[in-house]
């Protein structure tokens, strides 16, 4: 797949002297859903802002659809729809007007049918004549998504799109995002809900302290870094782990009726075979066993902690 956004050696130093982005290199593939994860203050919003023209880069370059974001800003920006993290709305405008305004701003001819479709997809149709100030927070967020979609962008940035949106509507939004992807739109989202990235993304990037520390296919990431947990149900309760088994770093659970063992799936050997035979030698009998893949959240937490 060809890349639709190409970030090279991008750095951003804020006026305060703070280095928010440190030599970022990143390629976004056409048509993918890319999730950018990272703790608060990692630089996610700064990165998005720079690509979209809101933040001036200090050094490095970015192209969008092959267009440089500075020398060819018109072509670059026309491709992008941006939903910022903060709720910025014109309180006294109606939903319909504010969404139509965005379309005009991006130089597109009027198209009420498209705006109607966007509003309906986002369950905002019955609010189209309401002033934005009368909407709830979740509705306002959807208005901002509608504004970004009003001009039919090929790339959509969603900076924490589902913060403050209830579960049902969040599912609805994911639906919208998937439909957009099917229509060929590239989507870059940031989120603090790891399950959202897990559910939605094709690829995942992790950023901390202004540096991209990992970019990986979601499936590959889960496999590569995935930890698994083996849970063994015991025939007889034990009071303590026999000292001979100490190297396995086992834990007792369920009042001594269960032993758990964490292992690395990417390791050469998992150690399960030897564990099982050592258990038998120690006289511990097993009635059942179960394995469990660790979630992206666990992976993420361990990555960020390491860096």
């Amino acid at each position, binding site marked *: 797949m060809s890349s639709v956004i190409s970030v090279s050696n991008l750095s951003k130093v804020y006026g305060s002297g703070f280095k928010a982005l440190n030599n970022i290199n990143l390629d976004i593939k056409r048509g993918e859903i890319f999730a950018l994860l990272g703790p608060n203050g990692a630089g996610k919003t700064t990165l998005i802002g720079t690509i979209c023209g809101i*933040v001036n880069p200090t050094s490095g370059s970015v192209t969008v659809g092959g267009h440089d974001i500075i020398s060819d*800003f*018109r072509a670059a920006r026309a491709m992008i729809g941006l939903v910022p993290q903060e709720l*910025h709305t014109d*309180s006294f405008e109606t939903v319909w007007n504010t969404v139509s305004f*965005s379309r*005009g701003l991006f*130089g597109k001819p009027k198209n009420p049918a498209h705006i109607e479709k966007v509003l309906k997809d986002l369950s905002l149709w019955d609010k189209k004549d309401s002033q934005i100030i009368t909407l709830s927070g979740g509705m306002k967020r959807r208005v901002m998504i509608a504004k970004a979609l009003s001009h039919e962008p090929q790339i959509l940035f969603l900076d924490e799109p589902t913060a403050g949106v209830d579960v049902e509507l969040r599912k609805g939004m994911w639906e919208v995002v998937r439909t957009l992807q099917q229509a060929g739109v590239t989507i870059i989202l940031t989120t603090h809900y790891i399950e959202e990235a897990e559910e939605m993304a094709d690829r995942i990037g992790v950023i901390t302290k202004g540096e991209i520390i990992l970019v990986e296919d979601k499936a590959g990431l889960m496999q590569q870094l995935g930890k698994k947990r083996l849970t063994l149900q015991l025939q007889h309760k034990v009071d303590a782990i026999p000292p001979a088994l100490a190297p396995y770093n086992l834990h007792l659970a369920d009042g001594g009726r269960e032993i758990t063992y964490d292992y690395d799936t990417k390791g050469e050997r998992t150690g399960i075979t030897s564990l099982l035979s050592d258990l038998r030698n120690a006289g511990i009998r097993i009635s059942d066993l179960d394995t469990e893949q660790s979630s992206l959240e666990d992976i993420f937490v361990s990555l960020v902690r390491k860096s």
Partner: protein
Amino acid sequence: MNWRAIQAIYLFEMARTWRTLLQSIVSPVVSTSLYFVVFGAAIGSRITEVEGVSYGTFIVPGLVMLSVLTQSIANASFGIYFPKFVGTIYEILSAPVSYFEIVVGYVGAAATKSIILGLIILATAGLFVPLHIHHPWWMLTFLVLTAVTFSLFGFIIGIWADGFEKLQMIPMLVVTPLTFLGGSFYSVNMLPSGWRTITLLNPVVYLISGFRWSFYEIADVSVALSLGMTLGFLAACMAMVWWIFRTGYRLKN
């Protein structure tokens, strides 16, 4: 040129004007009428004529300019400050619009509003005193130039301001005194010569003088000088706006 963006910004700003139509028209009409009652009736009864026209008639161009100046600055500064304040500026900055187009949209709308206002005040004044406009086209030229120049100036203030106090400060501390001392209510020739020289440092004098000339063919300074100063100030504001956008000053950090 992204004409649709200019149109979108312009119409958006004008819609804000229509929403507050009543207050934007009623208040200048009321204050103009008050000026006529106070200055026209009270002072006018003592100063009967200035350079051949009645005092009430004499102050009309100055009154119009006074409102056009202050309203241009207020409209334009608020127009750009507000999106900065509530954060909706993100959309303008991320849109495929050039700085020139942004300025045309915002400044165009602010200037339009103050031109309409100036004409309404002129019409109101016509109810109190007989008006005769010798050079209507020059009158319109000065009106438009002034509205555009000071809308640009307001735009600069709106970008510079990072709080409501600053937004009010320049208009209050600089512009209002300059307009009052700029010969709205008197002819500069009426001042003692020392004061005259100082007054001639005030740019507003040239605007009002030129504007008044288009009405009555009486002027404190030559018309060419008035026009030159107006255009000079316009150029200065344009250069300033150009610099702001080039550096992203107070817009992009």
